[in-house]
């Protein structure tokens, strides 16, 4: 088996990298694919909490690299999905505990075991980021429609472009978009951000309180079909698998009965 190693990165912190990694991982595994989630944020581990697996962590990524345990011993099985595993970061070490070469070797081993290896990169563009992209052949860049996030995403895209040989493609997820604010011209739209960054779009995730709720439960995507952000992540997973899925109609998310009538007659109002 040779799986795909996809790094999830952003430059700026707090834009939703870890949340996206957890949700995309669950969405992919729900389709039957085998998925490993790798937390590369050594010293600031969080992916285990989002997955609700914090009590099951025994070994971590640094233990594997330092050969204190076998890779299989460090992988934590998801509570709900048998084809989903987490490789946790070490909490008491720092970014210098591993190097790019070791990460490449680890990624190569993981892709013989899983269909998808999703690497949750730390914020920043220093060694932690460089290690996170070392073994990846694809990247997902996350940004929110804020100026600082877009600027940092642009920097990361520049760095990814410089490694075209290794990282064959990168696509953008625009997170926490607020359709109402875009409508009142108080926030950059999806189209604005795409024009500025000139990059391919992988998905659009609307701001959604349910994301906080499912995080607090430690169960990504637990809200079911009606959660908007959840649907967005399921669509993203399908696009990663190569399926054509239309982008969410953001206008209908905050729809009043009147706007629903309008969009019925004018269905082109999509992003």
């Amino acid at each position: 088996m040779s799986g795909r190693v996809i790094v999830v990165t952003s430059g700026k912190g707090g834009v939703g990298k870890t949340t996206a990694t957890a949700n995309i991982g669950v969405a992919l595994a729900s389709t039957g694919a085998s998925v490993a989630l790798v937390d590369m944020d050594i010293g600031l581990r969080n992916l285990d909490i989002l997955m609700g697996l914090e009590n099951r962590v025994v070994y971590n990524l640094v233990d594997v690299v330092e050969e204190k345990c076998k890779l299989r011993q460090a992988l934590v099985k998801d509570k709900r999905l048998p084809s989903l595993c987490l490789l946790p970061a070490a909490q008491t070490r720092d970014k210098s505990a591993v190097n790019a070469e070791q990460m490449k070797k680890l990624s190569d081993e993981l892709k013989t075991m899983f269909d998808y290896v999703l690497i949750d990169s730390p914020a920043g563009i220093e060694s932690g980021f460089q290690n996170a992209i070392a073994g990846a052949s694809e990247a997902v860049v996350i940004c929110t429609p804020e100026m600082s996030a877009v600027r940092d995403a642009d920097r990361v895209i520049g760095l990814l472009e410089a490694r075209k040989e290794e990282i064959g493609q990168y696509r953008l997820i625009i997170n926490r978009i607020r359709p109402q604010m875009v409508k009142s011209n108080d926030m950059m739209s999806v189209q604005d951000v795409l024009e500025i960054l000139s990059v391919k779009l992988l998905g659009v995730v609307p701001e959604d309180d349910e994301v906080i709720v499912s995080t607090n439960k430690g169960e990504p995507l637990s809200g079911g079909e009606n959660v908007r952000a959840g649907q967005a992540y399921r669509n993203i997973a399908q696009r990663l698998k190569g399926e054509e899925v239309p982008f969410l109609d953001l206008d209908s998310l905050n729809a009043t009965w009147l706007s629903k009538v309008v969009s019925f007659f004018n269905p082109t109002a999509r992003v």
Partner: protein
Amino acid sequence: MQVLNWFFRTKGDDVRTRAKDRMRLMLIHDRLELPPDRLASLEEELIAVVSRYFEIDRDTTRFDLQQYERRAALVANFPLLRSKS
């Protein structure tokens, strides 16, 4: 007042457009690693060179950076009035 503002707001002066314009300019400078005063001094020098050959209309001279995909282009427009002998 808010209602009036909304009513009379013309395209281009809203927060979204301002953010987009600032963003564009900032990223062009970021990508080229261009110091903020560099463009102004280039403009001055170019005007000086062109002025040796032509009288130019300084009021309608345009000089700016535009974005094409992830590249930038320098777009200069010097309206010429007459050639100098």
